[in-house]
């Protein structure tokens, strides 16, 4: 078995591209795993689930679910040296659908992920202005005041919802293509294309920058953020453990889903990356490195994020109190600067006892630091609304804005590489690319097609559609695919055969921890997470938050139900990727049945040659 595998390896090494060195491979995998979610999803989860206490379910999920699945994907790709479709086809022809499912999911996720990067680019382009454009509301037509929509919310919200997205009041109103977003999307795809142009040859070189640059920026932000006033409040708020939350099952579910999506499993990208490795490579160590670095990055990123959010909460709190001080000063004609933040309470007490009616008529705000700290946000809300508002108040805003958006872009770009490789490698392995098309042209066609389809996200209702794609494509299908992956490897390929392969590749047999998690714990956890996910989503009719300036309670978001046709599309997006699993299995089985029936009819041994054609 050794000799034939080695000769096969030699034959393939002349044809199959490979990584220049181990560092490239590791950086690419780390870059794929570390993405936008590490920066804007994990800190939010930490905050709402009792700070430091959330680390416990998170690390347990990493050890019991994340690392085993990661190890399995890297090992299977490295051993079988093919992309996702080829790998599952090799294990069993009935499982070919699994690879197709990964391919479809990777393609769909790549569509909307790059739209987010287009938004990041838009903000990056605007960060070179002084003052930053989201600092001030624009003036209305006769220059007497500010635009009403902007006055009711804030300049930051207005810049995001009106000047960037130009969002429509609901998902049925499509609006038109916003030309500025089309330009940004085109530049995002061009940037992706130039890194992806020759597959892993160019990706490997690009990841030297895209995978390491975010860490540099995070460190710079860490140093800057810790010197801001109010940073300590934010950090204490983030990390103070609230052990009560561990009793809530939702916390454990969210920890399991977070680790699963954070490691970018089931996309087929990791299988593709490891398939370019030499077979004699320690995939166990690679898996542990990638998994731990991913979790470490999440924790490391939450420190500057929360220091800056604490600073912002402090600024808002001081603004609130200063507004109160000014109101009191003006109403009672006290000398300015006589009431300060320090003696405010004494003054207030004095004025309230002497003139309670006047004080009451002033409608002073209740300023509570906790309320400002509680204003949490995740996802695009964190990056484009909360963070941009914090950046305005920091001295040297342009520098921090530029650094932040470059960091977000490189985080997303390295994840895009994995998505696109998850599409490219299977197509190349299946020889679906005609040989006369050079790789550069094919990757260009891929980028062009994706750009054309992603234009739906540049419409007025694009943000609503992106949320749908994010919730329905990037969640349940992945869980299903991962579950089938681990069942296939453990029970169809055979765990003993898998153990032998790993022993041949790394030189040692996987220990008890891997055996137990692969056979029982990880499939069980995946199943539980999947069932819980479906149950929770099916509980109520799905709704979405719409930005409607004519809404009665504007600036609060209007909560609307999805119309029927949109809901049908949601269900389609959920099922389309995974439908290929039973379809391909059924198709292959029907071919097998035909052959079996024909064999039974023709006892002639020469008849086998005729029936071979039927199999296709």
């Amino acid at each position, binding site marked *: 078995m050794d000799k034939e595998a080695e000769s096969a390896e030699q034959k393939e090494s002349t044809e199959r591209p490979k990584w220049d060195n181990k560092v490239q491979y590791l950086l690419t995998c780390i870059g794929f795993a570390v993405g936008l979610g590490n920066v804007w999803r994990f800190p939010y989860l930490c905050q709402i689930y009792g700070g430091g206490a959330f680390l416990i379910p998170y690390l347990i999920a990493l050890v019991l679910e994340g690392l085993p699945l990661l190890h399995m994907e890297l090992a299977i790709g490295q051993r079988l040296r093919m992309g996702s479709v080829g790998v599952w086809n090799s294990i069993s022809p009935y499982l070919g659908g699994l690879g197709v499912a990964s391919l479809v999911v990777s393609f769909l996720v790549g569509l909307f992920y790059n739209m987010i990067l287009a938004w990041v*680019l*838009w903000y*990056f*382009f*605007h960060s*070179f*202005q002084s003052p930053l454009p989201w600092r*001030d509301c*624009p*003036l209305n037509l006769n*220059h*007497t*005041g*500010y635009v009403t929509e902007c006055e009711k919310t804030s300049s930051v919200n207005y810049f995001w919802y009106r000047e960037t997205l130009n969002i429509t009041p609901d998902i049925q109103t499509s609006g038109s293509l916003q030309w500025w977003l089309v*330009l*940004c999307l*085109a*530049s995002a795809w*061009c*940037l992706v*294309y*130039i890194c992806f*142009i*020759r597959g892993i040859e*160019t990706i490997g070189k690009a990841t030297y920058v895209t995978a390491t640059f975010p860490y540099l920026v995070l460190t710079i932000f860490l140093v800057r953020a810790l010197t801001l006033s109010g940073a300590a409040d934010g950090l204490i708020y983030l990390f103070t453990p609230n052990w009560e939350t561990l009793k809530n099952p939702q916390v454990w579910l969210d920890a399991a889903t977070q680790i699963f999506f954070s490691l970018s499993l089931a996309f087929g990208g990791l299988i593709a990356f490891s398939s370019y490795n030499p077979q004699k490579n320690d995939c166990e160590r690679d898996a542990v490195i990638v998994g731990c670095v991913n979790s470490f990055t999440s924790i490391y990123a939450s420190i500057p994020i929360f220091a800056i959010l604490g600073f912002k909460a402090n600024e808002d709190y001081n603004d609130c109190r200063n507004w109160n001080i000014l109101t009191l*000063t*003006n109403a009672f*004609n*006290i*000398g*300015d*600067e006589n009431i300060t933040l320090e003696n405010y309470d004494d003054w207030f007490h004095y004025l309230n006892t002497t003139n309670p009616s006047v004080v009451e008529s002033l409608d002073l705000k209740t300023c509570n630091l906790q309320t400002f700290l509680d204003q949490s946000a995740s996802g695009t809300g964190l990056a484009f609304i909360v963070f941009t508002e914090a950046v305005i108040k920091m001295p040297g805003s342009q520098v921090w804005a530029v650094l932040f958006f470059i960091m977000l872009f490189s985080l997303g770009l390295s994840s895009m590489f994995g998505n696109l490789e998850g599409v490219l490698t299977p197509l190349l392995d299946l020889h679906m690319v005609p040989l006369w098309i*050079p790789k*550069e042209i094919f990757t260009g066609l891929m980028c062009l097609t994706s750009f054309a389809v992603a234009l739906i996200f540049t419409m007025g209702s694009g943000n609503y559609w992106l949320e749908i794609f994010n919730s329905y494509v990037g969640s349940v299908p992945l869980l299903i695919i991962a579950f089938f992956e681990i069942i296939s490897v453990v029970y169809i390929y055979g765990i003993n055969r898998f153990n032998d392969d790993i022993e041949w590749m790394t030189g040692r047999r996987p220990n008890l921890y891997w055996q137990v998690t692969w056979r029982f714990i990880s499939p069980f956890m995946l199943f539980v997470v999947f069932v819980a996910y479906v149950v929770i989503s099916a509980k109520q009719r799905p709704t979405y938050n719409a930005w409607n300036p004519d809404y009665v309670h504007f600036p609060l978001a209007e909560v609307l139900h999805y119309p029927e046709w949109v809901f049908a599309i949601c269900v389609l997006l959920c099922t389309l990727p995974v439908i290929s699993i039973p379809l391909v299995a059924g198709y292959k089985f029907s071919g097998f049945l035909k052959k079996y029936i024909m064999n039974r009819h023709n006892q002639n041994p020469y008849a086998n040659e005729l029936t071979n054609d039927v199999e296709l």
Partner: protein
Amino acid sequence: MLEKVSFLLLSFTLAEQLCKPGDPDGYKVRLSIKTALGENAYVWNDNEMFLFRATLAFAMTKQFDGQQFEVSDIIVCNQTARVSFWFVVTYPHNKTLVDKQVVERAVRKSRNRINSAFLLSDTTLEFIGIPPTLATPVNPSTPTWLIVFGVVMGAVCAGIIVVLVVSLVQRKRKKNETNEDTQVKTVENGAARDGVYYMSFSEDESSVTQM
């Protein structure tokens, strides 16, 4: 002497009667000197008040080209420690009050000069009821973001073209090399075949007895 004193008293009380807080033709002014200047704040006293009245007389005179307003035409009352006070403006010849809108126009026209006289700004020297004209945002002819976009896209497109050209050149070079290899091989094969042919021919010749 008595007449002068009584005249002054009369004008003083008249002035006081003209200026009332909440007067429909008057404006409240509010200064925040310490907020604006911090340590360099000056103390508000009668001299500063005189400067204010003089500045406002200047503004009114500027508005009405013909009429010359005097400091005495600006009447101030209800000064507080804030520092805030009310003022009204009277015409120089008859002591009738100038309309609110006229005063507003005059103040708006010379707002910058009034602010500069006191080293303050629109937010620290407030005329309650006269909103400051909001500064028109600077709009460059090409939006800045398009310039950055142009730079980035230009660099990326140049990079793409370079990579494509390089790979095209590499491909052509490889094709030429493989063409040369096959040509050499065919020549070699041809020579070998010829050699064999000749050898066999020569062998054949030698085997046949010469006539």
